[in-house]
């Protein structure tokens, strides 16, 4: 359950951020050819609903990705599109899917009939297991009052008189249309960015020959999808924009990806940021090696996010719980404490403004790939585990409410419960106040991967390098791992979450009250154990932790 005061405070913030009427914004439209596909998919749905006890749905996805790059020797371009239809039947026991890139009605109907035949053939195999029937949820149910209201950005796009057959389109808002720039314009901009890095390098201690490899890469993804079942007819279009900068000097590397969902405004890179990357690269070339041990550690938002994602992100995925593979389900049912009062983690695909950025966070959308509308969810509330995130079948298996976390790598892959944007809630300190609380320790800002251990409750958070702090001041010393590579933060998750000393505000470098609603979420990718990569945001405020095992 939400704390009453906290809920009120959060949503009064929300109304402040969306001063502009959400209906007035420029939004990503649905392509005409996909719009024309919608009625055909309704015909296919009719074929899939061959048995009144079955729940059927149809999902279509088209992802177009363009990548433009410039390095010191080349400019490059790649352009890929993948689209397909997923037909689904859930018979109360098993979810059956037939996925195809055919989009002609006759071909789809043929595949739909084959799927129906496959489900009928399998009938009887589930004898002895409980039937968990499911019926499509109508709009009245979808929109009924909930302790966490739907975001105004999402609500604004639903017609007032919405019914089962009403096409409801959600488009990501943008200021500068990212689809209209020419290839020449993009490549020229990337070459200029590489030039800016070279121009700023001398002031950061680099001679021209020291920077051996520079690369700037711009990504544009146009992701369109349809979801149709008996009670809904949804579509959405997301613009995913990113800019990746890689700077190398010999074997040392500094890399950063900027971006979000929205327009070109999400990928501007300041000289200040480039200078910071160059200084980091210079520091890494002269870094010492960390003496393994326990240290006070101040994590930046990206690393706080990896900690949230690996700690009680993965273990709060209900399909993992349903497989008996997560300790979190047991601990939730016991009401056990697994962290202190500062340990609050949220997951939300509805982060339509990422901290103070102009774009939505990387893991956002309006509905998931099973047609469930995006909504914020607290998964760890001041150290106490709340119900996990779900996809359709795991919610039914565990008998808990659905959430908008049914995701797949692409239309060719299966759905799992997946994280969207996972982040720690904000605190009340400024960055300087947190730094001042360190007698001896380190600051870590750059993530280098992480790994979950939902059953064993271990954790691994990779850190590229650390900056040493004594008596609240940086000493100028930088350390890498004991063997010269990444540093690993490891431990037992409840121990780590009980060691949080303090957290910053969202706008940590200002003493004024926060104007943003959500903490910053970094752009990332997430695998289910070692495969099935999906986009994910992770973040939080700056967080100070004591006695962290680093090696």
């Amino acid at each position: 359950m939400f704390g009453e005061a906290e809920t009120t405070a959060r949503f009064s913030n929300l109304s402040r951020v969306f001063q502009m009427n959400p209906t007035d914004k420029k939004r990503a439209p649905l392509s005409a050819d996909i719009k024309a596909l919608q009625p055909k998919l309704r015909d296919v749905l009719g074929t899939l609903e061959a048995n009144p006890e079955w729940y059927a749905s149809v999902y279509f996805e088209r992802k177009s990705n363009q990548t433009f790059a410039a390095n010191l020797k080349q400019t490059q371009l790649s352009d890929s599109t993948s689209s397909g239809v997923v037909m689904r039947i859930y018979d109360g026991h098993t979810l059956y899917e037939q996925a195809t890139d055919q989009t002609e009605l006759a071909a789809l109907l043929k595949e739909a009939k084959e799927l129906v035949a496959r489900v009928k053939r399998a009938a009887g195999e589930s004898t002895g297991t409980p039937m968990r029937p499911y019926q499509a949820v109508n709009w009245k149910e979808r929109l009924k009052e909930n302790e966490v209201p739907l975001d105004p950005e999402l609500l604004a796009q639903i017609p007032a008189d919405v019914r089962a057959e009403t096409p409801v389109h959600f488009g990501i808002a943008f200021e500068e249309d990212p689809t209209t720039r020419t290839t020449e314009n993009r490549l020229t901009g990337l070459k200029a960015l590489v030039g800016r890095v070279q121009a700023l390098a001398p002031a950061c201690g680099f001679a021209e020959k020291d920077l051996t490899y520079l690369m700037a890469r711009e990504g544009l993804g146009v992701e369109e999808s349809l979801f149709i079942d008996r009670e809904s007819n949804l579509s959405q279009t997301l613009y995913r924009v990113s800019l990746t900068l890689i700077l190398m000097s010999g074997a040392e590397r500094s890399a950063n990806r900027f971006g979000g969902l929205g327009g070109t405004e999400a990928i501007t890179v300041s000289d200040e940021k480039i200078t910071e990357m160059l200084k980091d690269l210079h520091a890494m070339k002269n870094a010492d090696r960390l003496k393994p041990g326990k240290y006070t550690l101040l994590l930046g938002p990206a690393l706080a996010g990896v900690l949230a994602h690996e700690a009680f992100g993965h273990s709060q995925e209900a399909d993992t719980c349903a497989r008996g593979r997560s300790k979190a389900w047991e601990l939730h049912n016991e009401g056990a404490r697994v962290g202190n009062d500062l340990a609050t983690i949220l997951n939300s695909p509805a982060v339509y403004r990422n901290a103070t950025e102009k774009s939505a966070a990387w893991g956002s959308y309006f509905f998931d790939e099973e047609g469930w509308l995006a909504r914020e969810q607290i998964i760890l509330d001041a150290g106490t585990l709340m119900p996990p995130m779900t996809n359709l079948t795991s919610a039914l298996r565990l008998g808990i409410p659905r959430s908008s976390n049914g995701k797949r790598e692409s239309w060719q892959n299966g759905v799992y419960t997946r994280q969207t944007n996972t982040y720690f809630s904000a605190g009340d300190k400024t960055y300087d106040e947190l730094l001042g609380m360190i007698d001896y320790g380190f600051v870590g800002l750059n993530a280098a991967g992480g790994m979950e251990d939902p059953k064993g409750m271990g954790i691994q958070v990779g850190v590229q390098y650390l900056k040493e702090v004594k008596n609240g001041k940086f000493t100028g010393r930088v350390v890498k791992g004991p063997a010269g590579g990444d540093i690993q933060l490891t431990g037992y998750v409840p121990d780590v979450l009980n060691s949080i000393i303090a957290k910053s505000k969202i706008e940590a470098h200002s003493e004024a009250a926060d104007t943003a609603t959500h903490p910053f979420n970094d752009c990332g990718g997430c695998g289910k154990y070692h495969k099935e990569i999906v986009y994910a945001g992770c973040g939080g405020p700056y967080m100070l932790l004591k006695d962290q095992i680093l090696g």
Partner: protein
Amino acid sequence: MITSPRWTLEQLKNELRSRSEVKGWIVTQENLHRRERYLLLDQGKLSVDQDREVNSQSVEVRLFVHTGKTGRQGEISKKFVSEKPLNEQIESSIAAAKETDYEAWDLPSDLPKDPPEVKSCDPFMAEDLAGALESATQEVSKAVALPRKTDFNSSELFMSIHDREVHLSNGLTQRSKQSRMYVEAAYSYSKSGRSDEYLHTAWTISPADISIEHLFQEASDRAEISLQTKKPNTGKYSVILDADVLAKLFNSTTFLLSARNEYLDLPHKNPGDDFIPGATGDLLTLTLDPSLDFGAVTVSVADQGIVQKPLVLVDKNIVVTTAIDAQHGKYLKKKPGTYRGNVVLEAGAMDHAQMIQSAPKVLEILQFSGLFIQETTGTFSSEIRLARLHDHATGTVSIIKGGSLSGSISDNFKFARFSKNRVKRSEFDYGVATGYFGPEYALLTDVSVVG
């Protein structure tokens, strides 16, 4: 309006041939057929949570164009879609490619003669994928039914056939087929209110190369010891790594042995360099082998139309050559050859028992949580998910979980010893194919561990 396919590969090639701006192309068509099953226990009965079938076809065109600049060319990699008119896609690709800028190069003018036959597809899977999945499901069912002290949690079974055709503008057409199978088993063990699990995963090209029964047994055995664990003491250890880890490490290090890296001024090794400076252990011999039976990267002819044959990259720790494709061979004025293949390492002389006895304390890693490797520096690190600590002073074997290990290929493989037994590994994690045939174990010294 999305409609049925409007064009064929022949039409695509004919259109490309007719455009004066087009200098060359590599067209790759892949037909995919995949079956998947996700299994778990539902009230004690093995049940299918999801059952999936996927059919798709993709066409990727790597298009080379004249840009009017001497010694330069343009290029684009583009996926063509069947629902859009061919000319529209070609026109936009040419226009975009003209905006890019590469040093010019050409596809080989000689067509491969008598390309070698390779084994890359399991015939039973190719003939009857549904039957193969059913057969594997039966094996899983039998393994789950065995009485054990542990609890079966879940399993995933994926099987697919990838049918590829590559068409080059120099006239070459090359067809190949690959089968892929993924199996995972998760078992947990509970005692006195505590529980932990072990997840075992395996990729293979041929189902005959893995034993589902063994995989499930080992997952269960390792789950059973997962509650007897303690953290390691911080310090330096002799460490045994297994083939799963070696496959990852040595596939990553081939990054340093490519002509592409040399051209782009990325970190790389040159012929004559020590692969591991100052190595005095079992000196490494590394071959890029595209001919390995049922390897993940087993190919006859690579995408640029060059026959792929086994190529020794490192011979007794000395770099002999690098992997050179046609493009980077032209840039660097080097003869192109093998640039795709499975990593094959020569065997050492030790067996597993000797490795365990090799030092007063030996840490044998059974599984890392997430092994992260920096290709540019050859450093690696991970949390320890499960390990055995063989302490010969006390005569004990303890089970270790937690803490992390940090190493570097250049430091920690200096005195490495390899096992005489060799094994095959395949992997398609995150869609990237890597193959390995080499020592089942390696023994490293002075590896930093924090507990």
